[in-house]
C-alpha cells in the first residue's frame, strides 16, 4: 500500500508512518488496535485523523511518541521522523526526541497537569531539561510563553486546579510549543471543553501554527472541526484507515459509507438545518481492504462488506 506524497506544504514529509500495527496483548488473545496504517505529514501541514472512540487514533498518537505501555505494543511497521527511525531510538535519544521534535496536547488538561506543581514549575521543567537554561531564564521564557497564549504571567505561580478548563488547556498548548517542535500532536484537545471555549482554543492553535509553522497531527471525532482546520485528513475505522484525501474533497464527496455516516453524524456549523444521519444500528464493517486511489490524492478502501444493513 503506497500513498503518493500529496503533502500540503512541502514534498519533504516530517512524519512518515508505514504499515504501523499495534496490538494489545491479553492473557489469552491479542487485540489489534492499529492494523497496517500508513500516512505521512508534510512540513507545515495539518493532518486530521478522524474516527469513533476506540478506532485506534489515540493509540497511533502514543505510538509516535513511543508512549505505549504494556499490554500495548508495536507489532510491526515503521515510524520515521525527519528521516530518523523512531522505533530504533535508544533511551537517551528518545528522551531528547520527545517534546523537542514532537510535542503533544493531551485530551484532558486537568489530568495531564501535575496537581501538586505550579504551572510555572511544569514549564520550567521543560526548559531546564532540554535547553539547559537556568531557573531564572526558564521562568522568564515561561512568562513569555503564557503571554503567547494570552494567559496573565502572574499565573505561573498558580496550581492547575486554580485555572479554568480553557486556561488549563491553553497552558498545556503553551507547554507543547515551548521548544518549537516541528510536529504537534493534538489528541482531542477540545473534547472536555464547552463549545465557546472550544472555538477559542482552535483559533489559538491556528494562530500559533501560522506563527511558528509546525506540522500538526489533529485527532478528533468531530468532523466539522476537522474539516475546518485540516489540510488533509484520514478516516479510521476498527484500526484501519478507510479513506484519506484533502479535507475539502472528503467534505465535498465522502466516498466510504463509514465516512459518509461520520459526516452525517455532526451538524454543520453553518448553512441550513439538515437531519442527522449516523450509521444504522448494527452496521459493522469487517475485512477492510487496502486503500486504492480513486482520484489524485483521494484513497478509499474499496468494496466494504456490509453486515446487518442489508435485509
Amino acid at each position, binding site marked *: 500500500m503506497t500513498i503518493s506524497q500529496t503533502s500540503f506544504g512541502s514534498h519533504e514529509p516530517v512524519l512518515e508512518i508505514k504499515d504501523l500495527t499495534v496490538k494489545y496483548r491479553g492473557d489469552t488473545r491479542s487485540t489489534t488496535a492499529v492494523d497496517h496504517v500508513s500516512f505521512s505529514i508534510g512540513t507545515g501541514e495539518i493532518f486530521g485523523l478522524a474516527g469513533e472512540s476506540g478506532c485506534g487514533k489515540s493509540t497511533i498518537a502514543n505510538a509516535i511518541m513511543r508512549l505505549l505501555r504494556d499490554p500495548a505494543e508495536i507489532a510491526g511497521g515503521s515510524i520515521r521522523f525527519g528521516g530518523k527511525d523512531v522505533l530504533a531510538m535508544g533511551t537517551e535519544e528518545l528522551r531528547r526526541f520527545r*517534546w523537542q521534535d514532537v510535542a503533544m496536547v493531551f485530551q484532558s488538561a486537568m489530568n495531564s497537569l501535575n496537581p*501538586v*506543581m505550579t504551572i510555572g514549575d511544569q514549564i520550567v521543567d521543560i526548559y531546564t531539561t532540554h535547553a539547559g537554561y537556568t531557573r531564572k531564564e526558564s521562568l522568564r521564557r515561561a512568562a513569555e510563553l503564557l503571554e503567547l497564549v494570552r494567559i496573565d504571567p502572574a499565573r505561573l505561580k498558580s496550581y492547575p486546579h486554580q485555572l479554568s478548563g480553557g486556561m488549563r488547556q491553553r497552558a498545556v498548548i503553551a507547554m507543547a510549543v515551548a521548544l518549537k517542535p516541528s510536529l504537534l500532536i493534538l489528541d482531542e484537545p477540545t473534547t472536555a471543553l464547552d463549545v465557546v471555549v472550544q472555538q477559542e482554543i482552535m483559533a489559538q492553535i491556528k494562530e500559533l501554527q501560522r506563527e511558528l509553522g509546525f506540522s500538526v497531527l489533529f485527532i478528533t471525532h468531530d468532523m466539522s472541526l476537522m474539516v475546518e482546520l485540516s489540510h488533509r485528513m484520514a478516516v479510521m475505522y476498527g484500526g484501519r484507515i478507510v479513506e484519506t484525501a484533502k479535507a475539502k474533497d472528503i467534505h465535498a464527496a465522502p466516498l466510504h459509507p463509514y465516512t459518509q455516516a461520520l459526516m452525517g453524524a455532526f451538524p454543520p456549523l453553518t448553512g441550513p438545518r439538515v437531519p442527522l444521519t449516523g450509521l444504522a444500528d448494527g452496521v459493522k464493517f469487517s475485512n477492510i481492504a487496502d486503500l486504492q486511489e480513486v482520484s489524485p490524492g483521494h484513497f478509499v478502501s474499496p468494496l466494504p462488506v456490509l453486515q446487518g444493513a442489508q435485509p
Partner: protein
Amino acid sequence: MRFILRRLGFYLIAFWVSITLNFLLPRFMPGDPVSRMFARTQDRMQPEQIEALRKLLGVDDRPIWEQYVDYLHNMVTGQMGVSISRFPTPVTEVIASQVGWTLLLGGTALVIAAVVGNLLGILAAWRRGGAIDSALPPFLIFIGSFPYFWLAMGALYLFGVTLGWFPIRHAFSDTIEPSFSWEFMSDVGMHLVLPALTIVLVSVGGWMLGMRNTMIATNAEDYITMAEAKGLRPGRIMFRYAARNAMLPSVTSFGMSLGFVVGGALLTEVVFAYPGVGYQLLNAVQGLDYPLMQGLFLTITAAVLLANFLVDILYVRLDPRVRAN
C-alpha cells in the same frame, strides 16, 4: 485555613472524648474495679492518698455532674493527682521523666521505617517485576506476620544474650551519669539499636506495600504520561511527578502511625524494659496505680492528637488542592 480550623475542632472533640472516657471507665465498669483496688491497696496507703483517690475515681457522694466538672477542670489544668506506686511523686512528674524515651525510641523507629519503606515502595513500583518488586514484599509480609514481641524477644536473646552485641535492657547503662557527653550518647544509641530495629523490621513492609500500590495507581495518571512525553529524565518523573503525588496518602498514615508509636511502643518497651510511657503504663496497671494510668493515657492521647494536627498542617503545605477550600 478553614481546613485547619475544622481539624483543630475535630481534635478538641477527640480529646474531650478521651477525657470523658477516662472519667467514665472507673465509674461504670462492671465488677466494681474501684473497690477491688481499694481492697488490695488500702493497707499500704496513707489516709490523704486514699482521700485523693476517692475523689479521682468518683468514690464520693457528690452528684456525678459535679464530679465531672471538677474532673475536667483538673485535667485541663494538668492536676492529675499523685502516683500511688511512686508516692508522693505527682503523676505529671513521673510522666515527664519518661515521655522523652518513648519519643526517642518511637520517633527513630518510625522515621527510619517510613523513609526506608516508602523509598522501597517507590523503587518497586517504578521497576515493576524487578528484584525489589518481586522478592521483597512477600519476605516483608512474612516478617510482619510475626507477633512483634516475639521477634523482639528473639532478637534480644540472639543479639543481646547469646552474642552479647547489644545491651539487653534499659535506655542507658546505670554506670554512666546522664549528660550530653559522647560517652553517654553512644551508650543511649547502643541501647536504642535492638528495640528500634525490631520495630522497623516489622513495620517497614506495610509502608512499602502501601507506597507501592499508590505509586502503581499514580503511574497510570495522565500527568505521568505527559511528563514522559515531555522528555523529562526518569529520576525527575519518578520523584517530582509520581512519588510526590503518591506520598500524599502516606503522609496521612504517617500521622496515624505517630500515634501508634507513642502508645504502641508499649510492647517494645516491655520486652526491653525501656523506661518509656508504655512500660510505665503496664507497671501502673499491674500496680493498680489508677492516677498514673489515667495520666499516662491522657498524655498518650494528647501526643497522638497533637502529632496528627501537625501532620495536617504539613499536608496542607504538600497538597495545594486542600488549600483552595
